[in-house]
């Protein structure tokens, strides 16, 4: 079987599952600002979220290419992977840097869905992408770390059992390089919430569970340190390319969804005696955005291929994410314009997907920061920060 056939097999199986959660399901969840629990359970039970976990720990041991195809199909079917995509990749930190004992303890349960590890505590109110300045600290006291600080825009905390938390273990003024002295702790949220962590939900423009976390003398067993103390920043960074590729794929799924809807509507909506899609003023924006999605798609596969071959792919992963997020946003805009007033009506689902896909111009990395990465790291321009 060729890789393409294998992807087609994945696509049709994911589509089959998603078809049981139609537009009306997602609309209902969106209106209630709820969590798509049944969908996430079905996706987990069918093993899709364990795609990246090796066979030995209960997953399917697939690459980022296949994982990206899975999430693309979820979004292409009208769903929103954002509710659960992190269950796929946050475990990467544990997989690459955790001890054998940690892996044996947690990965099989993450693969089965018994444990959800889909929260990732990095961003702070005063330090966004300037991560090395984060102020949340962990101080070792005997067999525990005592953590104090604050985090913001931490997604899916209320639907996670575990969270990886980036903390400073050596103060900034005591390290040689500012990227040193940070560590990753695995926090058991079932114990920590109410005993050290206070969760304050943040209501956002789309249905996405995100929160502010206040951390006050949270005790974390020292055995929950992932990898070596002080090297946490590097551990977090090497998971980011995976995240970017997967989110690029979700945007591509959104983009195709918007194009499908816009093209279908333009063919059937008749005004002044002919389908609106017969007007080039309506055709061209749909055609152009389709071109942009296809181009982003190529970059996604290029980045994924390099990632899966263990080659450096920072530039490609970032560029794929930028191209895909731009294309999906443009596609959302085109879909609304094509639908006219109906584009704003909730029952057409365009406005919902429009809100959902807008996020990816900002999260998990802002488009501007991708541009500075490309300018400085690829083109060698002087650093702006």
């Amino acid at each position, binding site marked *: *079987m060729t890789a393409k*056939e294998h992807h*087609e*097999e*994945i696509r*049709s*199986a994911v589509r*089959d*599952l998603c078809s*049981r959660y139609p537009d009306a399901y997602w609309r209902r969840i969106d209106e209630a600002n709820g969590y798509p629990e049944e969908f996430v359970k079905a996706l987990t*039970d*069918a*093993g*899709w979220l*364990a*795609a990246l976990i090796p066979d030995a720990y209960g997953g*399917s041991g*697939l690459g980022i290419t296949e994982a990206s195809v*899975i999430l693309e199909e979820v979004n292409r079917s009208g769903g929103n992977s954002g509710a659960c995509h992190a269950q796929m990749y946050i475990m990467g930190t544990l997989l690459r840097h955790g001890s054998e004992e940690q892996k044996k303890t947690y990965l099989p349960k993450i693969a089965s869905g018994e444990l959800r590890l889909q929260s990732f505590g990095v961003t702070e109110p005063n330090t966004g992408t300037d991560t090395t300045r984060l102020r949340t600290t962990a101080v070792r006291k005997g067999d525990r770390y005592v953590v104090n600080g604050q985090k913001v825009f931490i997604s899916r905390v209320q639907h996670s059992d575990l969270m990886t938390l980036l903390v400073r273990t050596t103060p900034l003024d005591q390290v040689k390089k500012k990227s040193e002295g940070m560590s990753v702790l695995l926090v058991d949220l079932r114990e920590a919430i109410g005993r050290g962590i206070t969760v304050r939900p943040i209501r956002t423009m789309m249905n996405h569970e995100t929160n502010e976390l206040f951390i006050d003398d949270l005790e974390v067993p020292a055995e929950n340190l992932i990898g070596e103390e002080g090297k946490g920043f590097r551990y977090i960074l090497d998971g980011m390319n995976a995240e970017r590729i997967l989110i690029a794929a979700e945007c591509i799924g959104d983009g195709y969804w918007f194009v499908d809807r816009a093209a279908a509507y333009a063919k059937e909506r008749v005004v002044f005696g002919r389908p609106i899609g017969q007007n080039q003023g309506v055709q061209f924006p749909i055609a152009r955005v389709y071109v942009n999605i296809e181009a982003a798609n190529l970059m996604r596969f290029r980045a994924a291929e390099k990632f899966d071959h263990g080659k450096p792919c920072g530039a490609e992963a970032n560029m794929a994410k930028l191209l895909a997020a731009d294309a999906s946003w443009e596609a959302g805009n085109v879909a609304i314009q094509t639908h006219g007033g109906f584009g704003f009506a909730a029952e057409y689902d365009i406005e919902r997907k429009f809100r959902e896909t807008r996020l990816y111009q900002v999260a998990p990395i802002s488009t501007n920061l991708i541009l500075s990465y490309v300018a400085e790291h690829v083109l060698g321009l002087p650093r702006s920060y």
Partner: protein
Amino acid sequence: MKILVAIKPVPNPDEKVKIKGDGSGIVLDNIKMVVNPFCEIAVEEALRIKEKQGGEVVVMMVGPKVGEQQVRTALAMGADRAVLVEAGTDLDSLAVAKVLAKVVESEKPDMVLMGKQAVDDDNNQVGQILAAVLGWPQATFASKVEFLADNRKANVTREVDGGLETIEVTLPAVVTTDLRLNEPRYASLPGIMKAKKKEVKVLELSSLGVDTAPRVKVLGYAPPKQRAGGGRVASVQELVEKLKNEAKVL
């Protein structure tokens, strides 16, 4: 219990099919094929029987090699192995039934399960002919299957016009499945990965020594007539008049 399930790949019912210019068939290029929905129900039923009482589920298919993709779908759902008889798409129902009978004779299952019809040609014949060729009892349009007397017999509830009929068949038998028998599971990722390692035995049609010369000749395919727009009638009288003289249904 060993169950043999016959499946047929069909064009995805959600896609619009086009008829070839010369009317000799439909254009299959770029059309996504899926497992015939009634066959999927048959696979699901076989898997449920196996889960309840153990045994083996073997999938069989007659048709072009590309149909292996749909065979893999059935394996990903959980079937144990498959037999694919490589043939063209031009076999008629009698020929398919005779080929399937050969596979049945070599596999010796306790039951053959298959969809009541394929949604492409809607022939609804292969199950019945297969039972006749084998000399086995048949129970078509099943909406419930129960086993009796240590699996020597089965009670099959059939969806017949105006209601349900339950008949007892002696096994081995051919059972064809209707829509309400079950809701098929979707393939899981581990299922797909395992299916890659499962055996698909490919047989050449010519090696079976079956006379597949067509007894049925397709004269041509034509699309349904394009629907003309509807109209409003002013009165019941006008409606009756139109039904009588225009539609000629009264």
